[in-house]
């Protein structure tokens, strides 16, 4: 079972990619999937303190469960407008 992780702006630049497929198991949360992402891209660690997250286009907490097949977005501080 996989989760699709989306990266944007500075986070995408640091990772060198905008989209990563990661394995996902029962019991996974936003935090556990993010930590799995950091194992592959340790250069993203500095961004974590200001990151927000969205599961299937809805803002989510670190402790929220990640359903199988979900899209999990890493959202740096927004600066639209």
């Amino acid at each position: 079972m996989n989760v699709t992780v989306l990266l944007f702006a500075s986070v995408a630049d640091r990772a060198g990619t905008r989209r990563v497929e990661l394995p996902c198991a029962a019991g996974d949360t936003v935090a556990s999937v993010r930590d799995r992402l950091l194992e592959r891209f340790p250069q993203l660690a500095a961004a974590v303190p200001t990151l927000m997250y969205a599961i299937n286009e809805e803002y989510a907490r670190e402790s929220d469960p990640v359903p199988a097949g979900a899209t999990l977005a890493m959202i740096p501080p927004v600066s639209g407008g």
Partner: protein
Amino acid sequence: MLIRVTPDELDTAEAIQAVGSPAAGAINVFLGVVRDNNMGRTVQYLEYDAYPSMAEKVMRELAEAAKERFGLEDCAVLHRTGRLEIGEASLLIAVSCGHRAESFEAGHWLVNEIKKKVPVWKKEVWEDGEAWVEGPESLGIQQAPASMR
């Protein structure tokens, strides 16, 4: 309700037309425009990144909230992405309602909320470098409870 994230030029006339209503006595339009300077540095152009499907979803939620909160007739929110030159509009908000005071309040409230919540990012490009702007008003910086980070 016209909601759109697009790489194309934003069309003010289209947005005004979209919010038109026989009961509307006031239409307020806000344009966020690319400025040639920020924080004392000369800006050459901006590059906008977005999570388009979620950005449209959040913009629609905010537009619905504004409609309810300020008794609007209708509301349009458009955000542009990609490379924008000085003077081009990145954000276009149009609201229509019975009277003028609400139109100003609703437009101002909407732009404030958009700056906090809509997943769009700008990169400033200067003569000697570039950097992604991490919005000081973003939910992740100021408003989010620690548990949301």
